[in-house]
């Protein structure tokens, strides 16, 4: 642990009913860092984000955000803490009944008493940062997937948070939009001095922009390191994941009985 840590995840475990999802996770994320959390589908990456934001309670361990244990806070204190956090959902989660402008202005109107003229300036500045100032009058259903995510990004930085969590920000994007979102994550993190956590499957794009990577497999941290360490790693799981090999520690085949037995061949002939 360092004094610069914004987030400390200590011995964190979580189970749905009695099914363990995460087991003894330890992480430290410093101010100004972009950290990637990678792992296969269903490995518990999004659950980890929900634990960090206090949306669910851990079965063991704790998360500290800016020195406060998240799951020990009262509801009011948690909501007050969440004003320092932003989250970009997988498909943006824009409010479909509000325009792009009103989506970005939403938090300002809910949490501040700023005059409308100042809100207007701030909204246009946030939209300008993601390159969509000219789209402020559009409705969410008029946006492409990449544009919707950029608007959601502008909305999540509306109150200049200390932390932004990105849940699969690259899913379903074309290469240009993917690169735009990746660069925006890096640029905004640096410009606003915040911390970013990126949950993603996209190894190549995320390794270009992140400072540190955690790999989660079977509910534990299978590996972690800088992008260079990850690229050079010979650990079987990391190697398979980074190079997208179809078989390895994560098997191609779902566990089953013998193939010959299933087909009734050889000794199993009926």
């Amino acid at each position, binding site marked *: 642990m360092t004094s610069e840590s914004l987030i400390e995840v200590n011995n964190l475990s979580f189970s749905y009913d009695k099914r363990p999802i995460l087991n003894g996770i330890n992480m430290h994320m410093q101010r100004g860092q972009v950290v990637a959390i990678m792992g296969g589908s269903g490995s518990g990456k999004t659950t980890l984000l929900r634990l960090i*934001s206090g949306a669910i309670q851990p079965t063991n361990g704790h998360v500290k955000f800016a020195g406060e244990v998240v799951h020990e806070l009262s509801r009011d204190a948690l*909501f007050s803490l*969440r004003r320092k*956090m*932003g*989250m970009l959902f997988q498909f943006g989660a824009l*409010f*479909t009944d509000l325009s792009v402008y009103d989506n970005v202005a939403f938090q300002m109107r*809910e949490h501040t008493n700023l005059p409308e003229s100042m809100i207007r300036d701030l909204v246009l500045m946030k939209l300008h940062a993601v390159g969509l100032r000219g789209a402020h009058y559009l409705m969410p259903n008029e946006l492409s997937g990449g544009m919707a995510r950029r608007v959601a990004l502008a909305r999540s930085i509306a109150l200049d948070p200390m932390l932004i969590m990105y849940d699969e920000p690259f899913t379903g994007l074309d290469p240009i939009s993917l690169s735009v979102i990746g660069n925006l994550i890096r640029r905004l993190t640096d410009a606003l001095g915040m911390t970013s956590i990126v949950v993603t499957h996209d190894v190549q794009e995320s390794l270009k922009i992140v400072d540190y990577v955690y790999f989660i497999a079977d509910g534990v941290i299978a590996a972690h390191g800088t992008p260079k360490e990850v690229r050079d790693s010979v650990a079987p799981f990391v190697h398979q994941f980074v190079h997208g090999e179809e078989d390895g520690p994560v098997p191609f085949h779902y566990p089953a009985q013998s193939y010959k037995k299933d087909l009734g061949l050889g000794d199993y002939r009926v």
Partner: protein
Amino acid sequence: MFRHALSAIQNIGHRVIEGIWRLGHASRFFILVLLKSGTSLRRFGLVIRELYFTGVLSLIIIVVSGLFVGMVLGLQGYETLQKYGSESAVGTLVALSLVRELGPVVAALLFASRAGSAITAEIGLMKATEQLAAMGMMAVDPVARVVAPRFWSGVISMPFLAAIFSVMGVYGGYLVTVVFIGVDEGTYWSQMQSAVDFRFDILNGFIKSCFFGVAVTAIAVFEGYDAPPTAEGVSGATTRTVVTSSLVILGLDFILTAFMFRGVS
């Protein structure tokens, strides 16, 4: 055989327990909505915006249905009453049927189909597309910001819609019996005036529609908020809103009628 019977009993028991659990869950949610209604009162603009969607946009179906129901009542009432030479009482029949029963009940059934299902679908889709989760992440309580304004808009608009339904029904009856059939206009209105009591008929009808408004909207917001976040889940929740609301309206109507009109001639 014995195993099948046991399984059937277990199944019934499971469904009963599940039903009771869900009722408790819905009751807790209803109390939560009431507790979090402060935002709706402080920022009444949120409720007014929803009043447009639940109330104003339901007006056409309420006005047209009310007119036709009144026309049918007038026609059927006249056909029956004239056999006994009492066709002059047709205005009374139309008005009492509407303000006591058909106005609140049919308007509530239409409201459940038009506005209740829309509320459920909207909240359910907001949940499925993570809009409610996003709101929570922005430190804005979705129950206070999304659910409570919709609930109060339904509660407020229902009595007005029922009243409009009854008024249109009375005019529908007038149209058929007075304009088309030729019943005396003075008789139609004066019989109605003397027979319809403000306290027992109009006020009780208003109270009924208030109960229906609370029931329908509470069911609609609960089903939407509780819907599984999938296309199938939202569609199932919308169906449940209409079916449950309709049954609750009819059941409540019987109970309220039994209390309100006991001993009233």
